[in-house]
């Protein structure tokens, strides 16, 4: 993905840089990290005690004279057991610290990323990006969490064990230890090389899995079409082919993996043979005891085994690091519509006037302007209707006025104040925007309305419904205001969702109300009634309405007609009809009964 298409700030960050940065972003991860590492090191004694005990046993008891001093053996054994139990407790402590700190740090990271994403306009501008943004906060963080719980622990414990095993070997016989270290290095490089070969094979498998998933999902979600067109056999053939192709790729990958893995095992076995050979051949006369050589046989395994785990964890670590990078990239993407904060800019009380000067706007990343050179002023207290064909820029216009988007060029003023200087608290308090979707949260009707004014009482909410002539609609719901609307409002119809969204905006008592086809799905008869109620209620406020039925425009104080991003006509209904221009054409189409051309 290039920077241009992803929209994120993308930096080519090395894994080390990414790690350093994430420790800065989520300081919980860093807290007491060194103590944890130290504890993990001490805990590694669990594995190291055995070879040491064996060496002691062989060199001081079994091979000294013929008499084994059982008292010594039991005493030494007791010390070893005590040491083992302590090591277990210490390692447990290390693991607990790691689990607790990583959970805290990652929660911190998640909340930070979430809050930041809400400040990026791409979240509501580019709907297709939403899935990717969701996974930044969910699956990416989960992947890092899982890595910390499994691979991360393994890496920590494993590398501590490998280092300590090597130290013990150095103390027993450094020459032999160097041989083992060199062999272990070759072994590690061999495994890394195998991993890269395997990764390519796994990529092919993943690609196949994607294709299989696609055909299966088509078979399931397209069943009505498949059945209506008698395409069952054809579809099943497609699924079969995809499954067989995936199977073949998987078996090839398994076989490759098995071959590589077992040749690595073979190499590891040869290290042991080398230790015995070198140890025995070079032992003559210079103090390599039998016990030490035997301990070596155990220590070799303690070194080789974590190397395998470490290399296998390497790819997990890389994908966790990729997750970290993705999250950091989101955090690095500057918030594009920034709250100027509690600045002193306060809008004069009463209805708001709107002024746009030479405004241009293009959606990222393109340079195709959807608003071109727009200069318009809207008087305080006027009712404005906005009309135009699909893609004429109506909807973008409403988002610019409410600062859900910032213009690419030009300036916007509300009641004389530059829109960018108005603090969000003040802005959202005075200006309400109702989009077409009527998005509801999974809660009651009342809770959804209260979303627009958190301190609203039940009586206020009821009054808001009454204001808009919707009291009896609410009463007709199964539990009135306490009706649960379901996930995304699924228990209500699309039109009913729009009604709640309308009341939600209304209850904040805005001085500028901007509606973007806010009632497009409302039942025709109900919509007419709602419109009449609003006309009464709206007196004394400024309103901008994108009309989906031209009858709304007929009643407006002024109509703005958009075409291909430009304001082409403005005026009252009768004047525009008389002028016989763009609007007159739209109106003619609509009146002929195919009016949806103007609506879309």
């Amino acid at each position: 993905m290039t920077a241009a298409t992803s929209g994120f700030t993308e930096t080519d960050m090395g894994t080390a840089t990414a790690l350093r940065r994430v420790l800065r972003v989520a300081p919980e991860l860093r807290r007491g990290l060194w103590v944890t590492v130290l504890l993990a090191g001490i805990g590694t004694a669990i594995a190291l005690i055995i070879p040491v005990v064996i060496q002691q046993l062989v060199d001081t008891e079994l091979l000294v004279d013929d008499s084994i001093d059982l008292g010594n053996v039991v005493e030494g054994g007791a010390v070893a057991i005590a040491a083992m139990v302590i090591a277990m407790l210490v390692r447990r402590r290390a693991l607990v610290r790691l689990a607790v700190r990583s959970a805290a740090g990652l929660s911190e990271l998640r909340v930070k990323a979430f809050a930041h994403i809400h400040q990026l306009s791409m979240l509501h501008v580019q709907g297709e990006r939403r899935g990717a943004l969701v996974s930044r906060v969910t699956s990416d963080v989960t992947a890092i969490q899982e890595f910390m719980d499994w691979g991360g622990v393994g890496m920590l414990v494993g590398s501590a064990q490998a280092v300590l095993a090597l130290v013990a070997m150095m103390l027993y016989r450094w020459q032999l230890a160097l041989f083992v270290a060199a062999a272990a290095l070759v072994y590690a490089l061999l495994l890394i090389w195998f991993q890269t070969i395997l990764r390519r094979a796994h990529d092919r498998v993943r690609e196949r899995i994607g294709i299989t998933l696609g055909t299966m999902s088509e078979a399931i979600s397209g069943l009505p079409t498949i059945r209506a067109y008698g395409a069952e056999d054809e579809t099943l053939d497609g699924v079969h082919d995809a499954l067989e192709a995936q199977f073949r790729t998987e078996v090839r990958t398994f076989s490759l993996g098995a071959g590589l893995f077992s040749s690595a095992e073979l190499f590891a076995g040869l290290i042991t043979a080398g230790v015995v050979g070198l140890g025995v051949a070079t032992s003559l006369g210079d103090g390599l005891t039998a016990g030490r050589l035997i301990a070596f046989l155990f220590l070799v395994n303690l070194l080789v085994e974590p190397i395998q785990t470490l290399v296998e964890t390497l790819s997990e670590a890389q994908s966790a690091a990729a997750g970290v990078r993705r999250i950091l990239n989101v955090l690095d993407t500057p918030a594009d519509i920034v709250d100027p904060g509690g600045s002193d800019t306060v809008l004069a009380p009463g209805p708001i006037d709107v002024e746009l000067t030479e405004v241009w706007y293009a959606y990222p990343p393109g340079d195709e302007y959807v608003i071109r050179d727009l200069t318009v002023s809207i008087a305080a207290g006027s009712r404005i209707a906005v009309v135009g064909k699909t893609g004429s820029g109506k909807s973008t216009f409403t988002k610019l006025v409410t600062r859900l988007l910032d213009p690419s060029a030009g300036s916007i003023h509300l009641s004389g104040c530059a829109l960018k200087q108005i603090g969000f608290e003040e802005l959202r308090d005075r200006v309400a925007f109702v989009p077409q979707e009527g998005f509801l949260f999974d809660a009651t009707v009342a809770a959804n309305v209260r979303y627009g004014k958190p301190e609203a009482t039940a009586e206020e909410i009821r009054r808001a419904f009454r204001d808009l002539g919707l009291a009896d609609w609410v009463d007709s719901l199964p539990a009135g205001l306490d009706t649960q609307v379901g996930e995304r409002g699924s228990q209500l119809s699309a039109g009913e969702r729009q009604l709640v969204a309308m009341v939600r905006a209304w209850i904040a008592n805005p001085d500028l109300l901007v509606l973007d086809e806010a009632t497009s799905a409302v039942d025709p008869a109900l919509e007419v009634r709602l419109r009449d109620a609003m006309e009464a209620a709206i007196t004394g406020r400024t309103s901008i309405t994108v009309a989906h039925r031209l009858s709304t425009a007929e009643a407006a104080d002024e109509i703005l007609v958009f075409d291909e991003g430009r304001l082409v006509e403005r005026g009252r209904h009768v004047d525009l009809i008389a002028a016989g221009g763009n609007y007159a054409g739209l109106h003619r189409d609509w009146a002929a009964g195919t009016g949806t051309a103007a609506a879309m």
Partner: protein
Amino acid sequence: MSAPLADRPTLNAVFRRGLALIWRLVSMHPVAFVLGGLGAAAFVGAIVAAAVVVGNVVDDLIIPVLDQGASSRGRLWPAMAAIAAVALWKAIGITFRRIGAGWLQARCQADVRENLIDHMLGLELRWHQRRGVGDLLAVADSDAGGATWILAPLPYATGTFLLLVATTALIFLIDPLLAVVAVISLAAIIAVDVWGSWLMFNLFEAIQRDQGNVGRVVHESFDGALTVKALGRESYETQRLRVASETLRDKISAIGTTWAGYRILVEGLLGLVTLVMLILGATRIRAGAITSGDLITIAYLFSLLTIPIRVIGFVLWDIAHSSAAWTRVQAVHDAAEIVTYGAMDSRDVGTGAAIDTTPISFSYGDDPVLRDLDMPIPPGRTIAIVGPTGSGKSTLATLLARLWDPDSGVIRLDDRDLRDFARSALPGEVALVAQEAFLFDDTVRGNIAIGGSPDERAVAHAAALAGAAEFIETLPHTYDTLLGERGTTLSGGQRQRLALARALVRVPRLLILDDATSSVDSSVEAEILESLKRAELPSTIVIVAYRRASILLADEIIYLEDGRILGRGTHEELLGIPGYAKILEAYDENSGHAATEPIP
């Protein structure tokens, strides 16, 4: 997908079900399992042999040479060769084990998936709707995969079992007293492992729920981003996520603490047992029952057990996962709501079909959607079905194409019951175009031709009739352009026109358009309907229509309300019915008129 905590199966039940599942899958491909099993047995033999070889090397080479000053001549090379041979033996065993296991798992997964999709394709849409696309896809994807997971570690697990038996046998051969201690300790370790991993499994499942909660908050909040921003509630949303995220964090921390304890026990207990064996072993050496090499063999064998014994716990997880997944797969397999077909073939007579019915009733759940509806249609007519939302129009359309069957009543095409047609025969006579145009991940041509094999001219002709030819010509590879996920994306209107072409290419005797051009610009829609009319298709046409222009094209209009036919006739005749008039005229007049109408 995780089951509620209340009906969690017991450990016993999981084992029983797991074994039954394993038996079932393994008996599908016994050869692969035997191959993998033999590999595992060879692997086990190699481990035991490695321990024996090390013991012998200690007794015959290391102690004599290093301690007693014997010459290494004639002893060194055989010892090294023995160690290398054992390593090779182990590598071969691993290769066979891994390939056998991988093949078995991949094969069973492909088989299970294909059977599943095959079965789903035959099930009634009623069943599909009840289950939901997302849920079914999860079964075909993750559950079918998950059910076969258990096969991957199965040979290793079988090997581990054999290894424990072999370990005990070997120690028994060395010294019965030590063997008794070994058996008791190993049994205790396994008990701790199984019990602990079961406990952990359930705890980890519980995390899934909190993880799901975080996901839900993120999804909802990002989906409603426009609303969140328009109402200025970003910080409220962040707080909402913080609560969910920190609940998850606390759960992960708590479980991490338990997990650390379990992990330490599993890793440390074997070390403790080894220490005890070494102490006891020293007394046995003193008693002359065993040699030093024997004791090293036992200690070495125990050190090689560390990893296999850990597998036991993981296998238990896999069993639990797989049997839960298999239960969900089975539930789909057990669904018996298969659509039954007759033996009748389609008839190609080149005229529109006549439809007649006995009174038909239908419901999706409790509420009847169609009530005793009787709808004869003479051949060659164009009928528009009009009615308010939820009146049953779309349901009627799907019944006519036999995507669903009525609860009672019979629909006949030229006196032939729809249910008597053979599978895939009915689509030869009836074509349904739904509002949601489903396109396959295929070329434009493939999408139009699906279910048949029309020639190039027929495809082009159908595309032209559907008003699609023009934009198809502008696509990168015209009719060979790939569509869908990995291809070009089309607009809603373009998709609908392709779907229409798909229906027209088969020259159906009954063409059903269910709001099939809703996303097409109304001027284009008018052209399409005009050209359909001019083409004088040999078809009876049923149009579920919302736009006035399309309604007026019909020879006859059926007005549906609440699942009943309230009127049938020409537009003028139906205007007398209040409901019909309201739909057609709600926006014809300006707001003043409609607003004074009483609201029903």
